[in-house]
């Protein structure tokens, strides 16, 4: 059973194609991570799924409802947290929760119970009467999350929920996300952080509007051919230039922090004699670099 199914979904803004021919499926109850650089089309995709934007072409369904025709049905059952903080900062914490409780037509006693739960979940119980404008970034995001899951949505869309959030709040966030997934909520989350993506059941890489891969992190790591090695060095850029000028045959070479990553066909590893190196299992970052390069070659 799939909570989200997209077929050739495309969105254009004038001549610019923000989302190009995206086809993907998200299993009910799974956490789907949407990765890609800024402006690659992550938010545009999510905004189409939430009924904020209409697709230019292609089809999509959320919880079995067509996103173009039944967006009002979808809205009853989804939660959405946008990239930009979008609650009322001239209302207090509890007033915001009460407002969204009303917007989702939660009845008096049910609403009260849920609001209480959210306050505890977000650790905002002691600050419930504070104006939101006085909260710092991490606290605001927790409140925004609380408001978006108040009505127990079947699917939750989170657009970069942890941008500009302190590590403690980030951990708390992911704890809540895991918890929701365990209870059966489907979650689609966009992020910049590769370590966060590792926690997802499946991830999709989106680049310049194209979905270049969509699978589990473990599977994606296997798609890289050959062996990945790491050469520790004080001057990765310098070493990169030297190796690029040498006769060494490799599949890919790039800097990663304070070391150099080299992707080689396994049988050719013997060519490296001058450097100390170690074999490493590819991280998602390596997968992303590899996928973007092979996408460009096409």
């Amino acid at each position, binding site marked *: 059973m799939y909570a989200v199914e997209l077929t050739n979904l495309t969105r254009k803004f004038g001549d610019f194609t923000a989302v190009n021919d995206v086809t993907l499926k998200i299993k009910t109850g799974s956490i789907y991570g949407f990765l890609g650089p800024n402006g690659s089309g992550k938010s545009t995709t999510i905004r189409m799924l*939430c*009924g*904020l*934007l*209409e697709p230019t072409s292609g089809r999509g369904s959320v919880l079995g409802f067509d996103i173009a025709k039944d967006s*009002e049905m979808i*809205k*009853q059952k*989804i939660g*959405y947290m*946008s990239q*930009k*903080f*979008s*609650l*009322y*900062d*001239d*209302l207090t914490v509890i*007033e915001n929760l*009460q*407002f*969204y*409780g*009303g*917007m*989702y*037509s*939660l*009845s008096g006693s049910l609403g009260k119970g849920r609001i209480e739960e959210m306050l505890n979940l977000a650790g905002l119980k002691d600050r419930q009467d504070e104006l939101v404008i006085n909260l710092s970034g991490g606290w605001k995001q927790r409140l925004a999350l609380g*408001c978006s899951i108040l009505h127990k949505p079947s699917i939750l869309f989170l657009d970069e929920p942890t941008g500009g959030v302190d590590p403690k709040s980030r951990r708390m966030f992911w704890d809540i996300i895991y918890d929701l997934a365990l209870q059966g909520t489907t979650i689609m989350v966009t992020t910049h952080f590769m370590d966060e993506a590792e926690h997802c059941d499946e991830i999709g890489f989106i680049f310049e509007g194209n979905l270049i891969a969509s699978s589990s992190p473990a599977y994606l790591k296997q798609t890289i051919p050959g062996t990945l090695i790491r050469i520790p060095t004080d001057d990765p850029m310098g070493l990169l230039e030297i190796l690029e000028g040498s006769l060494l045959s490799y599949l890919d070479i790039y800097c990663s922090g304070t070391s150099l990553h080299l992707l080689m066909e396994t049988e050719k590893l013997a060519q490296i004699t001058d450097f100390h190196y170690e074999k490493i299992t590819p991280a998602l970052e390596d997968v992303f670099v590899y996928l973007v390069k092979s996408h460009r070659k096409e």
Partner: protein
Amino acid sequence: MRRLKALLIKEFLQIRRDRLTLIMMLGLPVIQLVLFGFAINTDVKHLPTIVFDQSLQQDSRDLLSSLEASGYFDIKYLAKSYQEANSAVDAGKAKVGIVIPPDFSENLKHGRQAAVQVIVDATDSMAASSAISAAQLIGQIKSQDILLQQIRGYSGHPAEKPYDIRIRPWYNPDFISAFYMVPGIMGVMLTMTMVMITSMAIVRERERGTLEQLIVTPMKNWELMLGKIIPYSLVGYVQVTVALLAGILIFDLPIRGSLALLYVLTALFILASLSLGLLISTVTKNQMQAMQLSFFVFLPSVLLSGFMFPREAMPMVFNLLGNLLPLTFYLQILRGIILKGVGLSVLWPQIIALIIFIIITLTISIKKFQKKIA
């Protein structure tokens, strides 16, 4: 229903928190009433006047005291030369210069025309026209008196004036400008707050991203619209009430017609202004633009609606343009009910005009708003 209630509570909380705007909305009626009611008087009196009287006879003194008694001329300076009278007007010390020639009295006695020169500083056209008509009128009355005396002298029995024009200034017999201004200010003030505040209120939600969060909820468009219209209509009614109370307490404004009708018809005008505000909010991207566009509506409302300048005096094009503004009709309704005491039988054309305006603007803005969401 729950959603609308939530929207209303939210809107009232926000209005209450925004103290400055709230004070402005409620203080504005009183401040404007006092300013316009007391400071603005289109009937210009007490113009500083310089006199160069070369005749210095009983007749010239008689003319001067008539001029002064009219209330339009305050004789402040006596000139010793024509030059002195001229330079006093040049310098702006005097707005009017009256020059009486040496043979003034002589000419009168011998039944010849006696010339008097009245120099008027016409840079301020309103002051000038008051002075001109007052001087002409006094000249005519004086001439008439002399003519009547002469006829009496020839025929031996008293003569009557052939025409007897009796003027009855209805509705505002004492020409109290506050009576005219107060209803006008109510309309202008409502236009300003209703159009500007509604347009800003929705654009602010868009600017801050809160509108996006609202759109992903199951909220209906009409719920959002009502959620804005209801609270601001109430604000509008509070303003009208404050302005009426201030008008009655400060200026003894009479309310000759039905107060109930006034309140009912005010709803039409508020609705018209709010839909205009909604329309502005759908075509603007940020609060700055909304503010500018509101002023763009506000200025013609003040100038063309008949608030300050009579619409009858406007060229045809501008007169017709004024018909596009809801304030034009609301002013006629306000002045009609408050000053004339008229009712529905007279005001129905204005009511129809307002209803047409509301239907058109509201339809366009709801259509436009839906497009914005998509």
